[in-house]
């Protein structure tokens, strides 16, 4: 381990001389097309998902809205929103960041990237069919798995290509250390096909008896968050935080420990969603223990990230990547604490089946994961296009809208859910009264969600402007030059 430690620190992404820079430029060029394809389509699905999310947010407050149009009723729009967010946006963004990081950290210049382009096409066709099928009334109505079998198959084939590619690249890496981000990417690339194949096999393609479906569904839901999105997000954070503050990650040993703890505990914590449900009691008990223990690796990651940045807080003022990434890191810490709290049986009895859990979903998928992806994209895209982001103010607007929107939306949903939960827990209170308790919070959540949506639209427009090169040319895009928020060029 101690030997690995020195190697890893030296391969940690903090050194850049001219030879390195040329090599990085060559690597960036070789992954340009697939990464931009995944990013572009991810941003498209982000907008689709945002639109669907806003429709469903209006509908939960005003049930008459679009109720005569079967394609756009709440029960179809909501799963279409969730799945396009999970698979269309988040996974595709994560795959793009994963490809870029994997190639760069492995020091491999791609000889051909057709496999990835094909994967990207399968990927988007799968999502398109999936979302249209949900709206047309072919939803599976299984949490996190609403796409019908054919769309799921296309996604699975796409993942297969990506996983094969990832492992080949990793195998042909340059000799030297394996950086923390690479373990996380490898874990994500390994776990996703296994999770997705298992869940689709038993729940969609070859359905087993209903009694056994529920635990498998929640094993999948927790797994896909903890063993796909979490490792992708952390791989990004572990790369960009040291890269931008210009010092190695605080502790190598801590990151090893946290890594193994994540893989074990996220595999075991899924049944905490079914406390008191129709599953054997030992399942929920063991998942409660795992969910509480998860606080340990989440705290270790937090220490590692916060200590690394501790003396360089001013970097937040000029690096949009660091800003987004640190908000994501903070959200992850909050997620860990609230996740442990929500899995305690007494508290879970109150918040189960309330908006608290919806807030938890957005805390994980927007405040943590999407923030990490935005941060990574702000760094990666200019280096692929060779041009700088056209407008610093737009980045700033995107950041504040998303940050404020996500914090307040999650807070409204959690608080509303808590009040609703205490109401539901007291049988003397009418059910409809608990609906009235929560409705003002739902209005607030929709309004704050709108801030996030506006931020997303700004980001998408900005991305298109950058692709069309309507900004500032940057001859040294692979260098670490960046601009501070008032437009000055800063050397990192």
């Amino acid at each position, binding site marked *: 381990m101690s030997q690995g430690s020195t190697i890893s620190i030296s391969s940690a992404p903090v050194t850049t001389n001219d030879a390195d820079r040329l090599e990085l430029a060559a690597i960036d060029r070789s992954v340009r097309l697939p990464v931009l394809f995944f990013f572009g389509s991810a941003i498209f699905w982000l907008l689709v998902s945002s639109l669907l999310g806003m429709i469903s947010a209006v509908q939960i407050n005003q049930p008459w*809205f679009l109720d005569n149009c079967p394609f756009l009723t709440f029960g179809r729009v909501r799963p279409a929103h969730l799945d396009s967010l999970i698979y269309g946006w988040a996974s595709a963004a994560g795959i793009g960041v994963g490809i870029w990081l994997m190639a760069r950290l492995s020091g491999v210049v791609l000889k051909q990237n057709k496999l990835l382009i094909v994967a990207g096409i399968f990927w988007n066709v799968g999502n398109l069919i999936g979302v249209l099928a949900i709206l047309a009334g072919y939803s599976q109505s299984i949490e996190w798995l609403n796409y019908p079998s054919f769309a799921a198959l296309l996604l699975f084939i796409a993942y297969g290509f990506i996983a094969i590619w990832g492992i080949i690249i990793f195998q042909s890496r340059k000799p030297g250390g394996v950086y923390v981000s690479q373990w996380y990417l490898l874990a994500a690339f390994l776990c996703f096909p296994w999770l997705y194949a298992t869940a689709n096999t038993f729940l969609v393609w070859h359905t087993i*008896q209903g009694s056994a479906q529920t635990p*498998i569904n929640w*094993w999948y839901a927790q797994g896909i968050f903890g063993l796909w999105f979490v490792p992708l997000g952390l791989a990004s954070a572990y790369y960009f935080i040291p890269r931008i503050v210009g010092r190695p990650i605080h502790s190598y040993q801590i990151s090893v420990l946290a890594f193994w703890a994540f893989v074990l505990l996220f595999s075991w914590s899924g049944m905490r969603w079914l406390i008191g449900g129709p599953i*054997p009691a030992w399942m929920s008990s063991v998942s409660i223990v795992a969910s509480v223990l998860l606080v340990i690796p989440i705290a270790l990651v937090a220490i590692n990230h916060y200590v690394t940045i501790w003396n360089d807080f001013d970097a937040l003022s000029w690096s949009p990547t660091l800003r987004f990434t640190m908000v994501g890191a903070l959200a992850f810490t909050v997620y860990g604490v609230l996740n442990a709290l929500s899995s305690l049986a007494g508290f879970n009895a109150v918040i189960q089946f309330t908006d608290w859990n*919806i807030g938890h979903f957005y805390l994980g998928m927007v405040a943590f994961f999407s923030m990490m992806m935005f941060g990574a994209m702000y760094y990666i895209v200019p280096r692929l296009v060779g041009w700088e982001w056209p407008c610093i103010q737009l980045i700033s607007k995107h950041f504040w809208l998303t940050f404020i929107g996500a914090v307040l939306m999650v807070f409204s949903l959690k608080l509303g859910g808590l009040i609703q939960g205490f109401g539901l827990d007291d049988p003397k209170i009418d059910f409809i009264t608990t609906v009235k308790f929560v409705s003002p919070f739902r209005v607030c959540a929709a309004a704050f969600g709108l801030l996030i949506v506006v931020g997303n639209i700004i980001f998408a427009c900005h991305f298109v402007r950058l692709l069309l090169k309507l900004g500032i040319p940057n001859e040294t895009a692979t260098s670490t030059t960046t601009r501070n928020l008032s437009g000055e060029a800063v050397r990192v």
Partner: protein
Amino acid sequence: MNNLRLIFIGVLILFLTGWIAFVGYSYTNLGHYLPVVAEDTGDSNPGPLSGLARQGQKVYAANGCVYCHSQDVRQLDVTKSDILRGWGKRPSVARDYMHESPAFVGILRVGPDLENVGARQTSAAWYHTHLYEPGTVAPSTVMPSYRFLYRMQEIQNKPAEDALVLTGPHAPPAGWEVVPTPEAKALVAYLMSLNHSYTLPEAKEPKLE
């Protein structure tokens, strides 16, 4: 940790432990239930779904009912409120879902739990009116209308037997009637089949003080 094989095998083993516990165990131990024949009545419980109810289950899935309605009466050591609210006489157990596919346990209660809605409401007309215009049955509800599952038609000779009884602002114009489509009939058959009031060896009716 520079050894690829170590990471690879380590991740697989750790992941496999959870997979065996939750997927493997569920598949082998929860996936092969048989109905239990009740000694007193001779009924086999849970009873099979009728063909119409099974179609209704598809309508339930297609329209995402599960996004607002759970089907899960929780265990008493966790909370008594589900049973005290009258959502069931006993907690749900795995066997209750043996005919369901998918099992609509749910995550959110925007509306009430439906695990035993068939025991609470036994009139098909109630369901149809509720689906057509929820506000007439449950004031201040946030449930949308499922009007698109119904058809308005001109009355031929005499009113159709399954025409909805609607009064007030939602009533059809004179000479017209509202009748359920086959989807609406299937959905109502499914909802009425949601009744897990029987007892099972592993789930007896508890006594609450």
